[in-house]
């Protein structure tokens, strides 16, 4: 990853930890507010972070969210160790889901997570190896037109 990193912090996400689902996204939001990042950038990134965090909780054993603030954008990478995604193209389709009843009871697992992340970010890349894990990389530009 290139560019001067002005701020960086990493957060651990535990798989199946539904009770704390959203805590990491909330902490990142608080940090971005302190850094006086524009509100619309914070909102879009927070939506992406929340979805990414819930994906780790629902589908992985454990993961990390790495936040990096650069001069022109906020970059996030979410890495997890777990079942991975066998068919990324299929997973990106709205409505496609392998959710369990518990996930649906929590209001997730409707097959909108990855599309929501892509919709709210300006840069998006997903890499996955089945039975190993997934790396989600996305960024919101600070000078981009609000969504």
């Amino acid at each position, binding site marked *: 990853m290139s560019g001067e990193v002005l701020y960086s912090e990493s957060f651990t996400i535990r798989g199946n930890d539904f009770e704390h689902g*959203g805590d990491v996204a909330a902490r990142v939001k608080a940090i971005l507010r302190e850094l006086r990042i524009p509100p619309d950038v914070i909102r879009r990134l927070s939506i992406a972070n929340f979805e990414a965090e819930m994906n780790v909780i629902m589908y992985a054993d454990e993961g990390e969210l790495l936040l990096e603030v650069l001069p022109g954008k906020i970059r996030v990478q979410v890495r997890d160790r777990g079942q991975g995604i066998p068919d990324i193209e299929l997973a990106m389709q709205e409505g496609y889901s392998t959710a369990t009843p518990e996930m649906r009871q929590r*209001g997730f697992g409707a097959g909108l997570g990855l599309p929501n992340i892509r*919709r709210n*970010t300006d840069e*998006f890349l997903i890499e996955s190896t089945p039975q190993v894990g997934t790396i989600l990389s996305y960024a919101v530009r600070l000078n981009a037109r609000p969504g």
Partner: protein
Amino acid sequence: MLLSEVNQLLGGEVIWGRELAARLWVESCFAADLMSDVLAFAQPGALLLTGLASVQAAHAADVADLVAVLFVGGKRPGEAVRELAAVKGIPLVTTEKSLYEACGILHQAGLRPGHRHSSGASPEGP
């Protein structure tokens, strides 16, 4: 209308944030039980109506910049949700009315749909 007026209209109860509800202005509503729908389509500033009484509902409201959460069908959130709402400053209200009935009453009272369209941002690798 004020959130306190919404509460009165629905015969509800403010679970957290009574003082805030008395001065919080509500212009629109978004109703959903799927939090991904909230994240995708709720308009910032709307009141969230939902039957999902979990921490994820409070987090979704916070992340999507919604002003308050109204739990329908008599749902009452647990302590963890109330604590989170207090930290975030998001009032919580509950009503016995169903989602359908609550939406109908509020729509008839003049609250408009708080639904936004997707941005269509184009992805490229970072």
